[in-house]
Structures are given as C-alpha cells and as structure tokens.
C-alpha cells in the first residue's frame, strides 16, 4: 500500500469493552479510488472497526485520519458531512417511513430543497433497483430490498468514502449477481469503498486490496490472491494446522 495517496489512515486503534479487548492496536489504510476489503472470521472485530471509522465507537488509543484531517474524536454526523457514509450489518431502516422518505433523509445532507432532495432520492433508488418501491413502507421490503435500501441511503449522502458492512450477507446467489454490478458502478463513479464481506467470491472479484483481521488484530494485508495463500489467513479461517494440510494436499 502506498501511503501517499491514502484517503483514510487508521493507525494503532485499540478498544476494550468491559475488560474484553475487541481491537488491539490495528492499522489500515484505504487508497483513493480503490475497493478495499476487510475480512476475517466472526468476532474478529470488523464491525467495531467500522464503528471507530464512522464515529459510532470511540477508540481507547490510536487515530483516524481522513484526507489529512484527524477525525478521531469527531461525532458521526460530522464525518458523514465530510463524505464518509456507512451501512449497517444489521439493517436499520426507518421502519415507519416509505422507501423514498428513507433515502431522502440521506439526500437532504447535500440538498436542502425538498424537491431536489426527493429527485435525488428517486435517482438513487433507481440506481440500486428500488425505483418501483418508492412509496412502499420500508417495513414491507424483503431482506434483499432492505440491503439495497441501506446502500441507497448511504449513496444518497453523495459520499467520497463508502463503508459497506456485509451488504451481501443473507442474499441468494442470483441476488448477489444483481448487486455486484451496482457496487462496480459506484466505484466507477469515483467513490472509494471499504467493505466488510464474508462472501469470498465477491471479495475476490471486487477488491483491489484486502486486510484480514482475527481476534482484534490485523493478521495480513495485500492483494487478494496473495492474501488467499497466506498461511496465517488460512489458519484463522479454517483452524490450527489447516495451512499445513492444504500444503500437503497441494503437493500430493
């Protein structure tokens, strides 16, 4: 990773909850224009890391720098104004509002005029495939619809850096095939993406760089194919001794 063009620099972050160390001195950086993946087994601390970056979790130590500005202590809504948007792993729709109203909350960030904000929301809805659902209550959406809504609301804030927390989880293969081009398209429009993802095939297809976390530490980073072959990564995912067994299997 070349440090010079890093859009986001996270360094030496640690955070404990009631004596349990969730994050232990992690660093990562995201290059402008890239799609960067953050992977790791369950409980690795990925979502907590997203919380630190987006302003929902205050770190005990370390710093978050966005475009050269130290934002470690900045509240979440100001980070959104700087251009950092996030989705939630457990979707958080405004259940009592319509799909259009949900997305408009996002688009109001850059457009104070109601007519403009609604027009923007409609455009974003079409972009993620919710164009036909604008007047439906958000509570009526399917799982895949809710994931799209998370994405749409974040996009409607017109971010420069988009944090996606498992937007593909819970979707079936055909739904995943439908949404991958949307993510490609977002990057093509100039938005930098940092994504937490479990669907490895999608990570391999989408990401330029990958960071791997396990038990609150960063255990590997690099290009997707290199990370895949990293014995530490294989052990973290498949258990102790797995790397050696795979090596043997490969040699046989």
């Amino acid at each position: 990773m070349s440090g010079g063009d890093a859009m986001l620099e996270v360094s030496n972050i640690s955070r404990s909850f009631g004596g349990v160390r969730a994050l232990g001195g992690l660093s990562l950086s995201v290059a402008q224009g890239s799609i960067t993946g953050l992977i790791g087994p369950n409980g690795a601390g990925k979502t907590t890391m997203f919380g630190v970056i987006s302003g929902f979790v205050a770190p005990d130590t370390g710093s978050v720098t966005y475009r050269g500005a130290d934002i470690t202590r900045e509240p979440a809504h100001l980070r959104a104004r700087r251009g950092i948007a996030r989705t939630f792993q457990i979707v958080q729709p405004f259940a009592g509002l319509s799909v259009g109203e949900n997305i408009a909350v996002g688009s109001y960030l850059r457009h104070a005029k109601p007519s403009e904000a609604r027009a923007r929301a409609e455009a974003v809805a079409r972009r993620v495939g919710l164009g036909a659902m604008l007047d439906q209550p958000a509570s009526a959406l399917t799982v895949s619809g809710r994931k799209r809504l998370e994405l749409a609301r974040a996009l409607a804030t017109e971010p420069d850096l988009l944090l996606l927390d498992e937007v593909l989880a819970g979707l079936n293969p055909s739904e995943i095939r439908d949404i991958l081009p949307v993510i490609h398209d977002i990057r093509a429009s100039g938005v930098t993406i940092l994504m937490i993802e479990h669907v490895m095939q999608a990570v391999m297809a989408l990401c330029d760089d990958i960071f791997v976390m396990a038990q609150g530490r960063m255990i590997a980073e690099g290009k997707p194919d290199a990370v895949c072959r990293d014995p530490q990564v294989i052990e973290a995912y498949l258990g102790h001794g797995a790397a050696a067994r795979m090596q043997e299997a490969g040699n046989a």
Partner: protein
Amino acid sequence: MKRSEWLFLVALLAALALVPLLASNLVINFLVTALIVALAALGWNILGGLGGQISFGHAAFFGTGAYVTELLQLRLGANAWAAAVAGIAAGALVGLAIGAAVFRARLRGSYFALVTLAFAEVLRILANALDVTGGASGLLLPLQPGAAHFQFDQRSVFAWIGIACVGAVLLLTRHMMNSRFGAHLAAVRENEDAARALGVDILATKLRAITLSAAITAAAGVFYVQYFLYLDANIGYGTWISIEALLAAIIGGVGTMAGPLIGALALHGLGELTRGFAGSITGIDLVIFGLLLVAAIAFAPAGIVGAWKRYVGGRRNA
C-alpha cells in the same frame, strides 16, 4: 399529506369559524377552550408525535407563556400584544433550556417523560410560592376591552383569533413535515443511529423540535390568559394541560397533522356530553378520557385520524 385531507381541514376550520355567528356564548366558550387545548396539543405533537419524544410536562411551556404575558402587563405595564410575543419567546426559551439539559444527558423514552414532568412541577411549586407570581392566590388581569389590549367584548373575536392561530400552526406543521427538518425529525424518531450515519445532528434536531413545540404550547398559554384573565400555579403549570395536550394529540392521531385539532374537539365534545348525562359528578369525563387513551394505544395507534383513514381505505378496496 393528500389534497383531500387538506381540503377537509380547510372545510373544518371554515365550519368552526361560522359557529360564533350562530351559537350562544356557552358554545363559543366551549369552542375557545377546545381551541386552546388544540393549540397546546399541536405544539405537543411536534415533539411527541413527529419527533417521538413523549413529554409529560408541556405545562412548563404553557404556564411560562401565560405567566410572562400576564406579568409583563401587570408589573411593567407592557402592551398586551408585545407581552404576548414575549410570552411565546419565553416559552420557547424554557423549551430550549430544558431540551439542552435533557437531550445532552441523552434521556429518552420514559426518562424523558418523567423528567419533563418534574420540570413542570418545579415551576408549579415556584409559581405557587413566589410573591411575584401572586403565590397561591393567583393573578387577575384587569378587564380592559379593546383590540390594543388583546381583549374583546365579543367572545367570537377570540374564537376567530383561535381558529386563525390553529390554521397558522397547521400550515407551519405542513411546511415543516415537508422540509429537511421534518425529514430529520422523522429519522430521529425512527432510528437515531441510522440518522447519525446519514449526517443528521441528533441534538440540534431535537432542540429545534422542543423549541418550536414549546413556542406553540406557550402561545396556547398566552391565549388562555388573555381570554380568562385569571391565572394561578395550578392552571398555568398544572398537570391538566400536560395531560390534555398529550391526550388530544394521541387520541386524535399522533404524528398526523390534523390529529391534535380533531382530538381536542372530540375530547371536549365528549366531555360536554358526559357532563350533560352524568350531571355534577366531577371526574367522570376524565375517567373516560383515561380509558380512551388505553383503548387508543391498544386498538388505534394512529388515533381517530388513523382509524378514519383505515375505514375509508377499507371501503375503497371493498
């Protein structure tokens, strides 16, 4: 808000405006009282309905509006209209101050309800104990009929001013619901985390809502004191107005635009009816209101307005 609903509201206000031409002083008195409660409830609804922060203490704003208006006239000889504006401003300020303390401490839900009640009670006890507010014997505004004094021989003029105020607040509410602030307020009500992630400043949004809400409820207090001319701590800061504002908004239709007005008219109409039937038994109307509140929560979460919409929708689909 659909055009048909808006037309209905305009028609309702127009019909109310005709009442003083046709009816007796007793009916006008009923109408003015209902309009005062409607105004307080419209204020409550901004914070409690649209913003989801249920207050048990809107008397704090009602009483401040009423006391400041009356005291400025009595003690400083201020012009009634200037005093009214000052009363509304003072109510808004008390709202902002309470909001700043309470929302900064992140009190929500039941805690918010209880702490607002406690604030109103503190003000009630103070108003009851201090000399400047006339203590327990209260304050009487001298009768000085004349437009310059915001007092009128004809009760109907009060009714029309009340209708105009309610109409103005309804317009304001509609404008607000369709604005960025309205969207932010709805987002805060539904899910604070998601709202923050989308750049909504939760504290600023809640503070704006409580200030606006308090100003409108304070206006109801101003109107009360100009109409009845008498004020004591149990009227101004008593729990009755906190409860009536909440009941009218929730029974009428919480978070809907017309709900508080419909609720206030329905409750006061029902109150008169039960008093007609049950005669002099005090409290019987409030027994019914209390049970109605339980029934509304259980069966009609969107109140009369919601039930009506469901009924109309059901017929259309049938």
